[in-house]
């Protein structure tokens, strides 16, 4: 147990360092905004008759950023704000704290990303086993080629092609948004149906984008396991095929769980294209909107939360692997 605790501590330290680096990048970017809107805002408030102190406080609330002072003072103030979960106020949504806006958007990212990823994981892993077992046949070749193709193509190409097929050529699905405005948001059949209808394209695109990677990873993992002696031994003992199949699955799928956890973290950042194309108001959409509208407080917050997702996913992946694979656990304990 102490081994796991020590690993966790190391991961946490590295994760916090990561978050600090990203926050520092955001800080310097906000400080170097062309045209300096923060100072401009401060000047304007002073000209409107506010006392310099009141104007400074108002600006600081607005941007989560001190308009004057030395570099160090500004930095300490900015970082202090982060530790109080105070990321400033969004300019495009007047009066709403950035944390509230982020929370609202996270809702629209987490569920579709999770559904899409799990869907592609299940599908890719199953197909990967077939691709490995039938690797010398036509079916295996086809599966492997489909995997390489989908894995190699960037997400926006997939999303645009899906959109072109299902909203332009055969308009069966809505081109964007989260639900029809006709329906009252709430727990009623019409609204939920509309939600599902609107989520279909983003979810299916996430699934397609992930599928290729899973099928390739599972195929190579199964091929490795197939060469192991215990599979040969099981076959020689005349075990049922279904039992041997279970042996293969349980051993081959282990390394994939780690990739699953990491990819869940990455998808928070990778969802930018899909959310922008299908006009889906998640975190990626928020980031791109805040960049276009030059809403710096919101931009810094979105960048930070995407990084935190990746850091957390990395830690979870490592811990999960330690718990799930007895070989890693006992190996670590033996080494300690």
């Amino acid at each position, binding site marked *: 147990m102490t081994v796991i605790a020590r690993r966790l501590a190391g991961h946490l330290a590295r994760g916090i*360092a*990561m978050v600090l*680096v*990203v926050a520092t*990048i*955001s800080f310097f*970017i906000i400080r*170097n*905004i*062309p045209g300096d809107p923060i100072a401009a805002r401060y000047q304007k408030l002073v000209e409107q008759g506010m006392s310099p102190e009141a104007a400074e406080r108002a600006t600081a609330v607005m941007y989560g950023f001190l308009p004057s002072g030395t570099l160090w003072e500004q930095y300490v103030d900015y970082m202090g704000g982060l530790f109080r979960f105070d990321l400033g106020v969004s300019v495009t949504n007047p009066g709403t704290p950035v944390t509230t806006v982020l929370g609202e958007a996270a809702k629209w990212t987490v569920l579709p990303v999770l559904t899409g990823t799990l869907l592609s994981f299940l599908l890719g892993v199953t197909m990967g086993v077939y691709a490995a077992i039938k690797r010398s046949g036509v079916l295996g070749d086809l599966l492997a080629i489909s995997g*390489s193709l989908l894995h*190699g*193509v*960037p997400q*926006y*190409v997939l999303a*645009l*092609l899906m*959109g*072109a097929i299902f*909203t*332009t*050529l055969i308009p069966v699905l809505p*081109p*964007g948004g989260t639900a029809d405005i006709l329906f009252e948001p709430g727990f009623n059949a019409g609204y939920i149906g509309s939600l599902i209808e609107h989520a279909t394209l983003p979810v299916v695109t996430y699934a397609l984008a992930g599928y290729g990677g899973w099928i390739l990873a599972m195929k190579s993992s199964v091929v490795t396991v197939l060469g192991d002696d215990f599979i040969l031994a099981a076959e020689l003992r005349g075990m049922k095929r279904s039992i041997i199949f279970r042996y293969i699955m349980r051993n081959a799928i282990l390394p994939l769980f780690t990739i699953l956890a990491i990819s869940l973290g*990455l998808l928070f*950042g*990778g969802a*930018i*294209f899909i959310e*922008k*194309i299908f006009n889906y108001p998640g975190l990626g959409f928020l*980031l*791109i909107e805040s*960049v*276009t509208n*030059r809403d*710096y407080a919101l*931009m*810094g917050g*979105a*960048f930070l939360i*995407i*990084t935190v997702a*990746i*850091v957390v996913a*990395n830690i979870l992946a490592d811990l999960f692997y330690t718990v799930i694979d007895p070989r890693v656990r006992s190996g670590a304990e033996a080494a300690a």
Partner: protein
Amino acid sequence: MSSAILETGGTTAAMRRDFWRGVWRVMRRKPSRLAGAVILLGFAFMGVFGPMFHPEPLPRDPDEIYAPMSAEHWFGTDGQGRDVLAQVVTGSRYVLLSALVTAVITVVLGTAIGLFSGFKRGRWDTVLMRLTDMKLTIPGLPLLLVLSTVWSFGSAVEMGLVLGLLGWGTVARAVRAQTLSLRERGFIEAVRGLGLPTTHIVGRELLPSMAPYIAMSMLITVTGAVYAQVGLFFLGVLPYEADNWGVMLNLSVFGGGALTTTAALPYMLAPLLAILLLTLGIVLVVDAMDEIFNPRLREE
């Protein structure tokens, strides 16, 4: 003395001839690989000479806005009545130039850092690899988006520079791993025993052994760079460049409504097809290179 030099010269020439014969054999066995090489040459030709065949700026035709596909306009026209195919051709120069800059910077930086880290080991190695890990964890696309607010890296060279400086992590990791394993091999030990300087060991022994891998990762970097820069322009966070694949995608989807009406669809599909074709060419060539340089894959 002089005859010995002549003799070694003769064998290297023979080896070179054998190499090209091997390349030809690999290409001929799977014609798809030849197709890959042809596609890449075609793109290179398009990037270098393509823009010369079209006037700058492209002619506008107010009577032919979002014209459908026809013999005159293979992929129709855009919202200003300009020929779409001509835009793909003139835009290819930007795409290929910036991808080339990215690939060169990525590979040079990645190889240098990986070699140094793996060869020196010790404290420098730890520091550099921590840095690489950190770089690999920071989400790349969000970082590019955030960066675009303070620096509009729109020109081809700037774009290549930014993507290259952000992208060397993977190559550095792989080169370091290979250096670590190669430096323990017998032939390196023999060279060290002969008392040859480090520059010789690195330049004449280590680098040539890794050259195939480096060449392949350079081609793979090109695809990544094309995706990234087209994506950035598509998202519309950079100032518009005239005739750019990403800008075409942006205007067709968010301006022409290609995801709701069919009128702007060819305008959107043309750059997508160009990207897919370029990817296909690179994948096929990498596959061929893999077989040329990897003796285990070679089927005699």
